[in-house]
């Protein structure tokens, strides 16, 4: 029994050593910039706290939360029912969902592309491969180059669920590892189209999205997203395993405070309230 006691004590000490003021944030690439800005500002005010922010996609962040590899998961989509069950298997909770910002899923076009508006159906047709030439959409006679994200991306899932209505992406879709890569590709490709968060739309044109052919087109601006005029707006989330305590609670409270929410606006997203 003595041996057993020693082993248990050793395990306890090892566990205790993992309780330093170090917070890991992992997940959505859409939220990477935002998470980094929050971390920078928070660490300035709290030098004793280290916050490590990494991307990889919402799916990667949620897996890390389930595996206990991150304290906070950033996700640009809600956790699925099966993901909650997996979290419950390990931590006995279905996770605490904290909406931290709002976003309009933005479709980027090259600035030289004359097309300015697209309906949801047209976007679906582009991404499922039904429409392959800009001429079919009132543009030049040129092949559409479709850029998208990997399936670990929350935006990938959001577009698939909400715009493609569950249909598969066209095999010709060029998958890129992050929103910045999508924007970069579209900025260089006159006939490219890509999607991502509104905050990343630099050097590209944001297409106005119409609910249907008879509707007006709207850009993903704060006013349009808040007024629910922009048809593909969404919440951006932080997920934690249990009700936050200690430093994580202080960080969450700060992110939801006016100071934290002002950074949301600076980065290019929209406050939750």
């Amino acid at each position, binding site marked *: 029994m003595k041996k*057993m006691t020693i*082993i*248990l004590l050793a*395990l*306890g000490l*090892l*566990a*205790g050593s*993992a*309780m330093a003021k170090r917070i890991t944030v992992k997940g959505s690439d859409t939220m990477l910039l935002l998470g980094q800005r929050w971390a920078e500002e928070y660490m300035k005010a709290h030098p004793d706290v280290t916050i490590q922010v990494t991307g990889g996609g919402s799916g990667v962040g949620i897996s*890390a939360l389930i*595996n*206990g*590899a991150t*304290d906070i998961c950033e996700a640009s989509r809600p956790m699925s*029912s099966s993901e909650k069950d997996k979290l*419950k*298997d*390990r*931590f*006995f*909770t*279905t996770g*605490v969902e904290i909406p931290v910002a709002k976003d309009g899923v933005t479709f980027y076009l090259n600035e030289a592309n004359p097309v300015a508006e697209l309906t949801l159906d047209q976007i679906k047709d582009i991404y499922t491969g039904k429409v392959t030439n800009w001429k079919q959409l009132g543009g030049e006679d040129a092949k559409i180059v479709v850029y998208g994200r990997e*399936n670990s991306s929350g935006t990938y899932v959001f577009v698939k669920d909400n715009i493609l209505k*569950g249909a*598969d992406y066209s*095999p*010709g879709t*060029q*998958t890129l590892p992050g929103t910045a890569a999508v924007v970069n590709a579209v900025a260089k490709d006159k006939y490219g189209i890509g999607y991502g968060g509104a905050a990343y739309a630099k050097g590209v044109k944001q297409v106005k999205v119409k609910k249907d052919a008879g509707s007006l087109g709207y850009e993903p601006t704060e006013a349009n997203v808040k007024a629910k005029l922009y048809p593909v707006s969404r919440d951006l989330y932080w997920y934690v*395993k*249990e*009700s*936050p*305590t*200690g430093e994580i609670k202080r960080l969450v409270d700060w992110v939801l405070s006016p100071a934290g929410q002002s950074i949301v606006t600076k980065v290019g997203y929209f406050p939750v309230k």
Partner: protein
Amino acid sequence: MKKELNWLVIGLVVLAFAAPNADAQRRKKKPQVVQPVLTIEEFNQLKAQVGTLSTQSEAQRQEITDLKVKLNEAAAMAAEKGASEEKIQNLEGKFEGLETDYLTTKGDVDKVKKLAVSGYIQARYEWQWPSRTGTSAINPALPWYTGTQGPSSQTNQDNFYIRRGRIKFTYTANPMSKYVIYFDASKDAVSLKEAYVELTEPWTKHNVSLWIGQNNWPFGFEIERSSSVREVLERSKAESVLFPGERDRGVNLTIPLVDYKGFKFTANGGAFNGTGIQDNIFTWQDPTRRKDFIGRGKVQLPTFGLLHLDFGTSGYFGDAYIPATAAAYQITGFKDVNKNNKYDPAVDSLAYRYVAASPALIATKQRLGGDVQLYYSLPLPFMKSGALMFEGYRAKDYKAKYATQYGIVTDTLAKGINKDYGVVNEQGFYVMWVANLNSKLQFAARYDYWDPVSDADTLALTDKARQKTYTGALNYFWDSNVRITASLSAPFFTHKKDLMPPFSSSYNNNWDSRNHVADIQVQYKF
């Protein structure tokens, strides 16, 4: 000669007259006034203009030279352009080729990405307490009284071994179908755990799915949880007796009826052979005419504050085939004549039971179950979250009944095919508390009870040893893949009107400590 001289004289005379006339004419013109063509100023201006023109001309000449150079350069560039256009065309061709290659590779990669590989290994060191009575749990064929020193002489009290070595391949071609094959390599054998096709209907939003092949019995909470996530190392006694191997061959329909704002209700229905995957005789066939049917309903309530409640109920209705047995004597214990708590062949006598021949028969097989899980989340620094879990079983199974006496026994097993004769009730339950002390450390405690014959006291039953087991486990999550578990499991047994060692009526209804086990296990999961 004379003629030439004459001509010379004549010429000289002519010259002599012509010379004074020319001079006179020059003297006549001299007095005329000559008007100048340019003034000095004009000349200077003209000179300056000429200088300017000269400079301009030089500049123009330079310009022309430069233009010539540029023209040459342009000509060279034009030549290069022609070559560049050719290069661009070549590059475009190469690009298109690369794009085709990319799409081909992407298609291949997408296919590979549809194949998911997962698994885990549980490497274990196990140490078994010396038993006061009974047989070795590791090798039940070795009675404790073998040898001269009694329990302390048992061999194999501690072992390193692989408890589970699992690998699972799942190929999801599209959301409508899935292929799963799952192997176990543990101890000294490799076995097939699961192999099934999963079909998901596309017509409703409920994602109703049908599993066809070898898969889990859809019964209870313990079975649906993987051993890789269970907080204690082994399943409860009741579950392991009633559902050995947890799997069978058949079909299983899963209907997620409700999934709305955290409220979920899922129904399962299945038809199976009933023999499971650990039957040594009927390794894959169903010896009964009917299939066994299983139904399960599970409810998950929305999170309420810090609490979350799930519960479910399950039912299993089928038949069991009981093979014919030949008459035989079985050693059941010994009479400890000299009361030294060990078998001395010179003094003690062995106890037997006589098992009469029995024809094969079909007997009722039934299981009912209920389970509740209460999850909680606490904002405490030393205890983050946890769960209280309860699961109860009540079952009906065939048991051979024997009236026993010291020495030769008489078999009272009824002959015939009455499927309810010899069927007895069994029951068991467990209650478990699990607490996450922090994100790395987890504590679990379980009380587990099993009664193999809960309602038949009229006939003595040699296997009627009730069992209660106390288990404590501490899990340390090394990283996202590795979990280290320290576990202590202490089972206690009763013996009631039986002849098992120590063959003394004083042990009737007393709990007997046997086969306590301590384990250290390292699990790697991916």
